């Protein structure tokens, strides 16, 4: 029988939630890596038992973990249990956390700091891991300070795709949460085409597997930057794609929800009747490429849902016309946020939609958003939610 596995990253560890296709009864395992910040976990579409995990904290830096059995056991890549990849004293080789910017013999470049001065790139953590659509050994990592890395050996060694930083990198600046590369979308029809997004530099696209990049921010209008229509410098929070229409993307920007139908060359706003067009997450229904989900958030300073009501908004028209989805969600005294990587959809016939909150709840809708139920209510603040559909 089909089922789902929900991978939840939190401020204090990772959790794995599993259920059958009814999505009513859940098994909860975790915390894995207790006490560490888990920015993101994601499974390989080719081999669902292969899961990559970003484990980090401010004291001890970055660790990459990998599971080859669906999250039951974990190891740092290069150290699979039972294989002879140990040092002479028998301890596993931890070679998975070396993220070094590619300077190609040149000085490391600089980016713009909050005060407008230039600041050297400093690796801080991995925000997002995106496994290849065709090879479980290939995985991309979006990191802070913003750059894109790739591993072709299952997460053991990482190499930067440095041409991205050449796209006016000196003018990029950090958002409130840091200068992170948080979105990586691979075109399923053309794996050499990859979209990425950075807070606060904007969206970029490569059509040749990362050798060259171009900013794709035409149509974005950001009133909070000196030139609201600048080619770069926009605080893009998240981009989503439906695999059947890879030239159509939906964007949740710092303010505004937008869409493009020409692979990012031109964007237009589709915020429509949303109560506020600020937010972090955006995602697309698994079977309806024009059905889109966002969670409006009150801003600039508050960063919680408006009016104490947790409402997912759904558009079945590709934007502009939005309906609030509230059944099963708290409609009073609720002041949580839903962070940019904390929404996902499953592929079951009745599309499941999932999101996690900074209050530690993970909600599931097994009917495409019509009704919701909490899978768990009291986890640490949720940073990311990914769903795997299991056969």
């Amino acid at each position, binding site marked *: 029988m089909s089922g789902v596995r929900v991978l939840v990253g939190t401020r204090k560890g990772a959790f794995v939630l599993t259920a059958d296709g009814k999505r009513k009864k859940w098994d909860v395992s975790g915390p894995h890596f207790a006490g560490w910040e888990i920015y993101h976990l994601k499974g390989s579409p080719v081999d669902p038992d292969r899961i990559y995990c970003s484990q980090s*904290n401010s004291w*001890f*830096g970055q*660790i990459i973990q990998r599971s080859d059995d669906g999250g039951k056991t974990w190891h740092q890549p290069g150290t699979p249990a039972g294989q002879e990849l140990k040092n002479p004293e028998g*301890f596993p080789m*931890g070679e998975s*956390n070396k993220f070094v910017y590619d300077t190609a013999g040149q000085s490391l470049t600089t980016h713009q700091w909050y005060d407008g001065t230039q600041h050297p790139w400093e*690796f801080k953590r991995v925000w997002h891991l995106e496994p290849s659509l065709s090879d479980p050994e290939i995985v991309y990592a979006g990191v802070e300070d913003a750059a894109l890395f790739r591993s072709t050996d299952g997460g053991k060694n990482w190499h930067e795709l440095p041409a991205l930083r050449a796209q006016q990198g000196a003018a990029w600046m950090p958002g409130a949460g840091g200068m992170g590369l948080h979105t990586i979308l691979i075109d399923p029809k053309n794996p050499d085409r990859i979209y990425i997004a950075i807070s606060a530099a904007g969206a970029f696209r490569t059509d040749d597997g990362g050798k060259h990049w171009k900013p794709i921010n035409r149509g974005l209008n950001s009133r909070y930057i000196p030139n609201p229509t600048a080619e770069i410098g926009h605080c893009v929070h998240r981009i989503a794609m439906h695999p059947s229409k890879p030239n159509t993307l939906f964007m949740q920007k710092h303010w505004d929800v937008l869409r493009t139908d020409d692979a990012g060359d031109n964007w237009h706003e589709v915020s429509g009747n949303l109560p506020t067009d600020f937010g972090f997450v955006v995602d697309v229904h698994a079977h309806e490429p024009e059905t889109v989900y966002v969670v409006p958030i009150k801003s600039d300073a508050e960063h919680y849902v408006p009016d104490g009501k947790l409402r997912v908004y759904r558009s079945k028209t590709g934007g502009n016309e939005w309906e609030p989805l509230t059944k099963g969600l708290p409609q009073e005294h609720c002041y949580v946020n839903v962070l940019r990587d904390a929404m996902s959809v499953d592929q079951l016939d009745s599309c499941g939609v999932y999101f996690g909150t900074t209050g530690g709840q993970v909600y599931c809708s097994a009917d495409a958003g019509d009704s919701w139920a909490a899978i768990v209510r009291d986890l640490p603040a949720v940073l990311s939610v990914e769903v795997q559909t299991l056969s």
Partner: protein
Amino acid sequence: MIRVELPSPLRRLAGVEGEVTLDVPGPVTPRTILDALEARYPMLRGTIRDRDTGKRRPMLRFFACEEDVSHESVDQPLPSAVATGAEPFLIVGAVAGG
């Protein structure tokens, strides 16, 4: 034998309990201790000093015989009490909580 005391998250990561004991060939300095520590526990690479620059991570401090040696040269010989194992070399996480 050199004795090294790790913060608890790193003890869990390395799969050890209590102090770590190491053979450190040559002069006993923060650098040679960390080299020996990472050679024995490769999973700790990058968690104490940066993988690229080798610099101490900013929220960690090093102590020897109750002295903060975090800002001394990593090649400065440590007190004989550490070199002989009478006293441990402490790797301490900054108290950044509240």
